[in-house]
């Protein structure tokens, strides 16, 4: 079966109108259908710019100089309107507050499909489907203002899903969530990929808890892509993280530090369970230091 690219960028450069530097500098990257890709980078790396290219907001809504080609599911974004692209790519922004503007959960989810003149009975079906998918079933009549931060973000995702896109792009969606909420959100997104074949493109500046959900990781710095690789490869060299000025996941950092400080060890754990197993089995057999307190 011929697998299509969900997103394909070739030689893309972008300068915001009135700005000096390149927000994106000769970027080439591709994302397959049904892939879960995380883009990691510090502030100013170009993640948001990349996100907004994927559904055409750049160049149609946001002005600047664009070079190179960006295609989603085969469609050139500069040749199609944001509205057309919205049926392929759903977008979720950082702050739920400024992307939820309806009086009820139901209205919010229905808004997109209504704009596409989807027939009424189909509207109802889509709303139920989307709400069910994100775990907000039954909250149709609620006012979004009464929802918790995590629920608001889920609502924003449901609103994007109702357009039946094939790829979901999220720009730092866990920004306003507490640590437990973050993990719940990523798990939800992962289930969308696994159960519904949806491609997910996630931007983040925190590497903790995200790598285990990803198929591929893109490391960005100063508008450039440094590496594109599966998490297992990224987690072989701690310098990958230093290069993008993002702290590595702490467990991985510990493995790296131990490998450089102790002789005769080569730890490769990346998760808590792996670390526990490896340390408990390896450490007791290591030579003990002479002076113990």
């Amino acid at each position, binding site marked *: 079966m011929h697998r299509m690219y969900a997103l394909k960028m070739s030689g893309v450069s972008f300068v915001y109108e009135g700005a000096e530097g390149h927000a994106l500098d000769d970027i080439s990257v591709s994302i397959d259908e049904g892939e879960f890709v995380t883009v990691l980078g*510090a*502030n100013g790396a170009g993640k948001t710019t990349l996100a907004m290219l994927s559904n055409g907001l750049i160049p149609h809504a946001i002005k600047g100089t664009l070079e190179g080609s960006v295609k989603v599911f085969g469609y050139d974004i500069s040749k199609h309107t944001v509205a057309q692209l919205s049926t392929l790519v759903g977008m979720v922004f950082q702050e739920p507050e400024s992307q939820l503007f309806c009086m009820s959960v139901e209205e919010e989810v229905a808004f997109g499909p209504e704009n596409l003149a989807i027939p009424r009975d189909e509207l109802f079906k889509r709303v139920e489907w989307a709400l069910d998918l994100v775990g907000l079933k039954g909250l149709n009549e609620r006012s979004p203002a009464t929802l*918790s*931060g995590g629920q608001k973000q889920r609502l924003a995702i449901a609103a994007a899903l109702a357009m039946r896109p094939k790829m979901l792009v999220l720009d730092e969606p866990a*920004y306003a969530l*507490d*640590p*437990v*909420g973050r993990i719940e959100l990523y798990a939800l997104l992962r289930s969308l990929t696994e159960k519904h074949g949806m491609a997910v493109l996630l931007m983040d*500046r925190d590497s*903790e808890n995200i790598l285990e959900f990803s198929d591929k990781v893109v490391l960005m710095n100063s508008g450039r892509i440094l590496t594109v690789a599966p998490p297992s490869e990224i987690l072989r060299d701690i310098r990958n993280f230093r290069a993008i*000025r*993002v*702290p590595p*996941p*702490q*467990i991985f*950092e*510990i493995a790296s*530090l*131990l490998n450089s*400080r*102790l*002789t*005769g*060890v080569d730890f490769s754990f990346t998760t*808590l369970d792996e*670390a*526990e197993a490896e*340390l*408990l089995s390896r*450490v*007791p057999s*290591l*030579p*003990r*230091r002479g002076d*113990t*307190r």
Partner: protein
Amino acid sequence: MIPKPGADRSKRMIEMDNVGFTYEAGVEALRSVSLKISSGEFLAIVGGNGSGKTTLAKLMNGLLRPSSGSIKISGAPAESQSIAELSKTVGYCFQNPDHQLFCTSVEDEVMFGPKNLGIGLEESRERMERALSLMGIFSLKTMSPFSLSLSERRRVTIASILAMTPQVMILDEPTTGLDADESSELMALIRKLNADGRTIILITHEMKLVAEHADRVIILSDGHILLDSDVRGAFSDLEILKASRLLPPPVTLLASRISSIGISRDLLTSDEFVFELSRRYGSR
């Protein structure tokens, strides 16, 4: 614990006795909260959304008045002092700098606070310059706050509170939106403020921050204090942390899981962990 210069540990800056707070709509945000904060402490107040941490902080500078119980600031009852008066002792820096910035230049912005307190132009200017230097943004003095990056805007708002020379500084999620480098630079500046003798109260839900910088932590859940202890002690109580939707840093979880090989449970940073292990095992 290294004693900090200029800190009179016996001075009680904030005392709360059985304080409760209920919002107008009838929501009980805080119940029987009692605590004592001494000068020079570096305290973190943590809790999930809705735990009451913001309410607690606002009670400390008079933005909110308790529904029950009593509060003393610097030994005197809080109710007898207006918010403006209290701001001389307890500074509150809000999370979103854009809710505060409105002047055409950074210097005007930072002098705003002292001027409100009736401090003369000359001294306001001196204080402003000192505050800007403390926050490492003296070079931005004449720039417009609106043209600055988030990290810079954050520093401007902290400087504007510093210029009022409060003994206590409450900082509400100061690292939100900052990346790792910006965050550690800011925390280093905040630690310096603490080393100079100021009491720092950090409101956050990021446990890494607490582990790396705070001496003491108060964990709030559902309006009351679940735990009030030194940071190391707090992190070893994993059950309480789970109950308040907080995650201890992975290193602490790992340490507790492998404690059987003889390293202590209460390790807070990767460096501590590695140091501990390499102290006992592995030849040089």
